[in-house]
């Protein structure tokens, strides 16, 4: 069975927003509800990976990362997230590190 995939720039937005839907368009909460959690659950139940392509995006605000990936980590645990999600980024290693840092130590807001 094929891995699940999310290409953020085309499936969601190339300008991610803030944490909550009330804060504006393309929020972390919107990404989590519409794409991240459903695809994560599907990947987990089918025992495949969820590949997330981070490239082509003009910066990821910490609020977006926290409102989506951080929230996922709080929901299912960092270890489970690490077992399922694979980040793809040829542009920046630092960006991937920042997201994993949030997953490993999610901000609780």
């Amino acid at each position, binding site marked *: 069975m094929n891995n699940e995939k999310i290409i953020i720039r085309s499936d969601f937005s190339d*300008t*991610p*927003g*803030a*944490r*909550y839907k*009330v*804060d*504006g368009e393309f929020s972390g909460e919107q990404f989590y509800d519409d794409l991240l959690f459903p695809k994560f659950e599907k990947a987990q139940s089918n025992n495949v990976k969820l590949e997330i392509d981070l490239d082509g*995006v*003009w*910066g*990821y*605000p*910490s*609020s*977006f990362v*926290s409102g989506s990936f951080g929230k996922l980590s709080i929901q299912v645990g960092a270890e489970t997230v690490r077992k399922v999600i694979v980040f793809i980024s040829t*542009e*920046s*290693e*630092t*960006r991937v*590190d*920042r997201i994993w*840092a949030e997953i490993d130590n999610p*901000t609780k807001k």
Partner: protein
Amino acid sequence: MKQSISVVNILALSFVFFLGTLLPILIYFFDDFSFVFEINIIDFLSLLATITLSIVVVYLAKSLDKKDIARNIVVEDLNKLCDIYSENRNILGKLQSKNKNYSLTQARQAINLNFHRADLLIDRINKELEVSFSSFYKKLPAKELSNQTLDYWKWVTDGPFMIGNFTISSAYIKDHETNLCIVHSNINLLIHKLIKSI
């Protein structure tokens, strides 16, 4: 170009060496000098030592020169990183001026783009350190530069600025200035550590 310069250096040295060797032979054949072929061992060893030292100094100077160039490139990039973060100050200033043509959304996108550029530069600096200062880089805590800039990224992009009804104020500008100074200090400290390690 650099390769051609070192070939020129070698040719020049070789020319001087052979000239120094041939000249006495030419003088011997063209003049009435009588040479004393007794060699003072101490003088001979001094000559060898002088020649060896002159070659070693030339190559040592070249090696230090390369290290200086690499260090300057890394320091320049670390200063560029500070400049990118400082651009956020200008964006917030533009927002504070209540320019009708400049919205909060535009300011957020501009600041996110700055952080994106900063992360790309951090990647580049890490690679430069790994290549040119590998022992220094290995001694640094893992992801040091990324960690030293993490708090500033979080403060700006996960703080009041990202909340829907944010209105910029003097208090926010002052707090931003404080956090900007802290990240500059962290980066400058890394520059000092790098210089000290050389």
